């Protein structure tokens, strides 16, 4: 690897100032960082969910530029290039994407955008570049959807964010094929704190996909990204995440969208990797007629604790939300689903639907479903359903009676169970997920 810019471990004012200086940031961003740091220093750890005591915030490197940005894949160091090749990124870029960004550790190392999309006026930039070149656009929304004071990890993120993507879609422009970002945590002991901000002007639409992975190290490491989405009047934003971090990653994210009048925001989240995940994509339905769909697929295996959820906050009349989760839990893993629908007093005619189904593949698998339906007016339609089950012996026998092996039959049943979510995931990822689901099923049948 070429020269690296790394900071010493731990979080101090000096570290934050150095990150800002390294990036050549304007003063307002440095001030935002320092304010976030102050807030961070007085906020407590989350009081719910998994045990985070293993995360030593004083022993993390908050910034590392391990790879210099390049203009073509060939220029990347071989190790990184091989990884991206194996993930099929260059291929996907050619065939199915309007734009692609790839981040290693703290910095975006590769970015491309189709000429057609660029000439439509769409911005698809590394976050730092956007801060320097489009300060007004960024400043208007950056950490306004999720302010640093929202929670400890939002504050931490605000202080040390690095990398990520800025997307701006001009009024009425529809980006027909997806934009994609790929995040790789490459170096041991270095946290990743990328910031993604998507602003969709009125009547525009865009689909953004992010994927993530990391090599496995013995030491735990923190990923705490943030996604902010602003969907203006009548805009449609779809945000798909396929998270497959290695099993030493604490993945503690903040994702939130604001949907203005008639806008629609869809979240599709596949959570497969990490040691511990806390992830609750939220849509604030701020304008009349705004809607959101929040689809989650969680696959927790031995040793994992995936605490996920979905939230819809109805702040305006005639808004609607649909939160759907499918979880598959194997071994001694634990998966929690927190589904929250809040309806404000003035949000008459709001409709909310929460649906959570869990399939347990082992006697040791643990799960919890925590629905909160909270309406402050009576003119609403809210529904909640939850099921927890195991694979039915009769279903298994039926499939095997046609010649399918036990493994094939189980795999088909599990894939069928998650299919309502899987079919919403772009094909190349869906195939990968299907393969991941062909797993060991010992003790899976109830």
């Amino acid at each position, binding site marked *: 690897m070429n020269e690296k810019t790394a900071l010493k471990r731990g979080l101090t004012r000096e570290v934050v100032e150095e990150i800002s200086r390294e990036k050549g940031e304007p003063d307002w961003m440095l001030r935002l960082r320092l304010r976030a740091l102050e807030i961070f220093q007085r906020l407590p750890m989350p009081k719910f969910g998994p045990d985070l005591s293993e995360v030593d915030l004083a022993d993390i490197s908050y910034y590392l530029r391990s790879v210099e940005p390049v203009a073509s894949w060939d220029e990347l160091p071989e190790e990184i290039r091989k990884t991206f090749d194996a993930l099929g990124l260059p291929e996907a870029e050619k065939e199915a994407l309007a734009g692609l960004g790839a981040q290693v550790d703290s910095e975006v190392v590769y970015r491309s955008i189709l000429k057609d999309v660029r000439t439509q006026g769409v911005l698809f930039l590394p976050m730092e570049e956007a801060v320097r070149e489009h300060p007004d656009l960024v400043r208007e929304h950056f950490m306004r959807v999720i302010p640093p004071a929202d929670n400890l990890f939002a504050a931490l993120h605000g202080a040390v964010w690095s990398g990520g993507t800025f997307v701006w879609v001009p009024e009425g422009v529809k980006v027909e094929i997806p934009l994609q970002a790929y995040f790789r945590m490459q170096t041991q002991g270095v946290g990743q704190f990328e910031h993604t901000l998507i602003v969709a002007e009125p009547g525009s639409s865009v689909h953004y996909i992010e994927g993530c992975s990391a090599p496995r190290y013995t030491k735990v490491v923190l990923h705490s990204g943030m996604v902010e989405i602003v969907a203006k009047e009548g805009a449609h934003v779809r945000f798909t995440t396929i998270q497959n971090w290695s099993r030493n990653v604490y993945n503690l994210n903040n994702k939130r969208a604001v949907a203005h009048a008639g806008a629609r925001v869809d979240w599709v989240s596949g959570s497969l990797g990490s040691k511990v995940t806390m992830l609750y994509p939220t849509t604030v339905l701020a304008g009349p007629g705004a809607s959101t769909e929040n689809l989650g697929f969680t696959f927790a295996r031995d040793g994992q604790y995936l605490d996920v959820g979905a939230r819809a906050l109805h702040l305006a009349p005639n808004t609607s939300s649909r939160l759907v989760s499918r979880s598959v839990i194997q071994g001694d893993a634990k998966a929690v689903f927190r589904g929250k629908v809040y309806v404000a007093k003035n949000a008459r005619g709001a409709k909310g639907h929460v649906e959570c189904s869990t399939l347990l593949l082992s006697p040791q698998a643990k799960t919890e479903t925590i629905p909160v339906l909270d309406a402050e007016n009576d003119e609403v339609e809210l529904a909640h359903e939850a099921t927890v089950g195991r694979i039915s012996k*009769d279903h298994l026998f*039926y*499939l*095997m*009676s*046609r010649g*399918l092996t036990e493994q094939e039959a189980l795999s*088909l049943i599990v894939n*069928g169970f998650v299919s309502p979510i899987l079919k919403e995931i772009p094909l190349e990822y869906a195939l990968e997920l299907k393969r991941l689901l062909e797993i060991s099923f010992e003790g899976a049948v109830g």
Partner: protein
Amino acid sequence: MRKLDLKGNLFPMAILETQDLHVSVEGKPILNGVELALEEGKVHALMGPNGSGKSTLAFALAGHPDYRITHGRILLAGEDITHLPPDQRAKRGLFLAFQYPPEVEGVKLREFMRLACGDQGHGFCEFQQLYPKAIKHLSMDELADRELNVGFSGGEKKRAELFQAWLLRPKVALLDEPDSGVDVDAFKVIARAIRELAAAGTAVLIITHYPRVLEHVPPARVFVLNEGRITQTGGPELARTIEVEGFKAVQR
């Protein structure tokens, strides 16, 4: 050992045979020494009052793990399959059309059959060719791309079971109550498929307590099961006797 009939002729070799089959469910004996022989290309009927053990026999033959064979043997084409798992039996050509096929969420009929065909040694090309043909033949067009049995009516489920049999061309097809919940017109489609299976060489066993079904698919042989044993064996006239006089007439 080949058996001789009264005139000293060799019985045709059975494709499926049970010898002194005893089956327990949850420790409770249900079948007590069933002797059954099915012949290639023929339609057989297994009749008996409710609770006589008909479905138990079907599940035991297909290898359901809850149906424990405590004594006796099952031979398929001369091979002992008594202790094989269900998929191994299916691969050797045994098929069970369920009385109550389960609804399996998210599993597409097409994908299921593609896997089944592959496992049973039919090539992919063969499947590509046969599938649409079978869909058309069994009037399955509306069900072809649906989830497996999910939201199917009783009659649709039965049709889907026969569709699978017709596609997979088993050596032996056990059809558990293929008529229940099916209206007369829909049953004609099913009955035709059953006759075609037999004509193509499949040994068919229709399990029913409703003799009228057999008018559409005349059986060559009729077995009466009572209290876990075959108590009568005969030709089509046995079914007619049951239809007119009820099971009491044939019980010992």
